[in-house]
């Protein structure tokens, strides 16, 4: 019951989340504008291999989701609300196929897996999400919270506490 409530909560924040997690909170009640397409490719005379990626910047620019992914997220949300978690996960996997580097999509998949009772896999997917969001403390904190839930579901209270601690540290850094 608790996990289902958690899932519904996640679905509520889903649309907010898909617009990318910037380190600066959005202002007032205005909805962040979703720009179509991805940012222009980085071009420079220098070869890029082994060069630091953009995420190393102080304020990370997170690519907005393409409309196809937004449509799939909406579908996944509807399916989850209708209790069809298997289909919801399948829709999220479709979204990941389109935009595999998006940490937020992996996070959503983790929440659905957790609701399905797949706590171990949910934790792994959350770890994966964090690995795709270096420098994005908000996303990482959220992943650690999910990991805490997953560990609680498995009865690992000590591990859950440690995960929660990590989440708090990330939030207050």
């Amino acid at each position: 019951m608790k996990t289902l409530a958690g899932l519904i909560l996640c679905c509520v924040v889903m649309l907010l989340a898909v617009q990318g997690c910037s380190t600066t909170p959005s202002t007032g009640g205005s909805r962040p504008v979703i720009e179509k397409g991805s940012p222009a490719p980085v071009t420079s005379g220098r070869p890029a291999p082994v060069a630091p990626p953009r995420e190393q910047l102080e304020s990370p620019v997170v690519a907005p989701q393409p409309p196809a992914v937004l449509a799939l997220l909406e579908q996944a949300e509807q399916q989850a609300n209708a209790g069809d978690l298997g289909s919801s996960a399948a829709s999220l996997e479709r979204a990941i196929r389109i935009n595999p580097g998006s940490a937020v999509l992996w996070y959503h998949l983790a929440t659905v897996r957790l609701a399905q009772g797949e706590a171990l896999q949910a934790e792994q997917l959350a770890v994966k999400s964090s690995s795709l969001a270096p420098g994005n403390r908000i996303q990482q904190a959220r992943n650690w919270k999910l990991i805490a839930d997953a560990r609680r579901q498995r009865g690992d209270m000590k591990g859950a506490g440690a995960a929660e601690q990590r989440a708090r540290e990330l939030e207050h850094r």
Partner: protein
Amino acid sequence: MARRRKQRGRRKARRKTAHRSIWLWLFAGLAVLLTGYIAYLDFQVRHQFTGKRWSLPARVYARPLELYAGQSLSADQFAAELQALHYHPVRSPRKPGEYSRNAGKFHLLSRPFDFWDGSEAAQNLRVTFAGGSISRLEDGSSGTASSLARLDPVLVGSFYPSHNEDRVLLQLNEVPVALTDALIAVEDRGFYQHHGIAPLAIARAMWANIRAGGVVQGGSTLTQQLVKNFFLSSERSLLRKVNEAIMALLLEWHYDKDEILEAYVNEVYLGQDGKRSINGFGLASYFYFERPLSELSVEQYALLVGLVKGPSYYNPRRHPERALDRRNLVLDMMVQLELLDVQEAERAKQRGLGVSHPGRKAINTFPAFLELVRHQLQRDYRDEDITSEGLSIFTTLDPQVQWQLEQVLASRIKTLESGRAIKAGKLEGAAVITSVQGGEVLALAGGRDPGFAGFNRALNARRQVGSLLKPAVYLTALEQPRRYTLATLLDDSPLIFTARNGDTWEPRNYDKEFHGQVPLYQALAHSYNVATARLGLALGIDAVIGTLRRLGIAQHLNPYPSLVLGAVELSPLQVTQMYQTFASGGFRMPLRAITAVLAADKSPLQRYPLSVQSVIAPAANLLVTSAMQFAVREGTGRAILQSFPAERFVAGKTGTTDDLRDSWFAGFTDERLGVVWIGRDDNQATGLTGSSGALLVWRDLFSQFKPAGWSQPAAEGIEYQWIDPVNGLLADAGCADAVQLPFINGSAPLDTAPCKRGESAAPGTVEWFKGLFK
């Protein structure tokens, strides 16, 4: 006398009653036997008809093509996909399964399809292509932009039971009325009136046959024909005729007309495709017209109905005139019974047969990939379930990638053969292509001839991997940032290793030289054997084996020192599993060929979900990936750079074995991973290194992929520093030959190289960003 007479009379009477009772007994016995026999037939009829009637092969589908603005797909690739789906080019599409094309603009009516996560409705779509990708997707009727559409998936094969029965099962409500009307008109006009047999029809047929002096008409009802196909052998005898009649009556007694008609429509024999018999109108429609029955027109129904009389005699591919006459006769009969008006029939007669080319076999186009699918299915299903339960199997196969792979592999091997004066046909190859983050097998080649279902080298050839193993050694080192970084100098001077038993091992470099002190990243990029051997020995062979286990190599590995130089035999698929972990950022995931399985009634049976396991710390994984980027930038894989823009992320490793027997390349971008092997089945020398063989196949293929983005790998806890490769010390952008290397936070060297200028130069990453974002 009287007594005697009396006795005789009594004896006579006794004999009479005995006679009578014998007849009675005989009659009773016969009746019992006959009843028993009928009961036996009745049991057969009911058992077979109500129980499972047909064994249905499993259908294997490719991944469905997703259409959305921005999808990397050219107009020609899209056209090829539509062709593989048997969509029909028309001037203006009116039915699902039809499309029109005007250069880069397509208009199509997609087919509905049941997926594991719900049904996709038929859609009216306009798709516009520009510059190798979809530039716009819109609703064909309203003109508004659509965000996403999913086509029905290409059928790539079926798993048949041993007797090669195939069928596309239809329910009666899926069968067009025009077809059943025509069928009844031609084969059994009294179908809805008779009780299984039609004596009048038999008499009429006999009379017609006598008049014609041969068999021109059959008197069998549809029910009798069904019984004949269903339960009986094809021998012609009186007993069989009697059986047929009894069983037809029994069938009608137990089941209603619609059930019988539905069975007939699915059972009737309509052709032969090699060993595979074509039963039922559903499959025949695909076999002759390459589209579902619902998409056919009236003259095509007439052709199929005409075939019932003699699929081989009226074979439209072999005897088109006979088939045309027969078809037109059926159309005439339909007019006679007022199922069709005269003008319509005349128009239909004007049209050609419309039968597809026989050369293009739709079945099992990709045997090597299907073997992988079957292999994975056998973990969860019994063999007979795979071949008889009518499963729908959704796979990860991307036909576009598969076609490209088959083409480049065959043509590159041919070029290599002629270039190296190898006898034509001797060189073989195998390859596996996967998606980097999903671990989905997109394409697989088991040999140079893609259609040949023989030895599948991608799955079953175990070959020495050579230097492909080295990244595991370097990763083991880089996971200890206090001891090893990419800038750590390794010793590439002569080495003689003496084992405990006295055996000595003296590794050599491919160029037969020693390179002295080399930074770690260069030792991997240039694949130096001696430096790697020394590193491996320092780390311990067991530590390297432990890393290989985490990367996904499950087979037993002997802890010999030569292991670190790749004295291990693996299949291309196993190598792919190992590199998948590198490519995905340190996450091991099962390589998946199947995403879901549906039962015959389209209910989901099993999903094979995306699953990951973190086995390598992302930061350490990024370091070894960076060294593999140097391999394709300045090391053994530098031929790659010719075909890729410098800013595109590519990493990879070549592999060459003793006497040039095996040529390997494993490489990945941010989207796809590809492992290619080239060698000979007789394990003779090929004269090819990893770079002069397998790498070229990889390059041919990957240069065709249009990247969706330009993302570079990143990881938490990584900092970048300029390093002077001569001494592995801190440098800056001003130093000649300085390179920027990633380090796990706090592990970068503290000492500065002599070339580094004074305090005026900004240290670290700032310089690089200035250049990039000016």
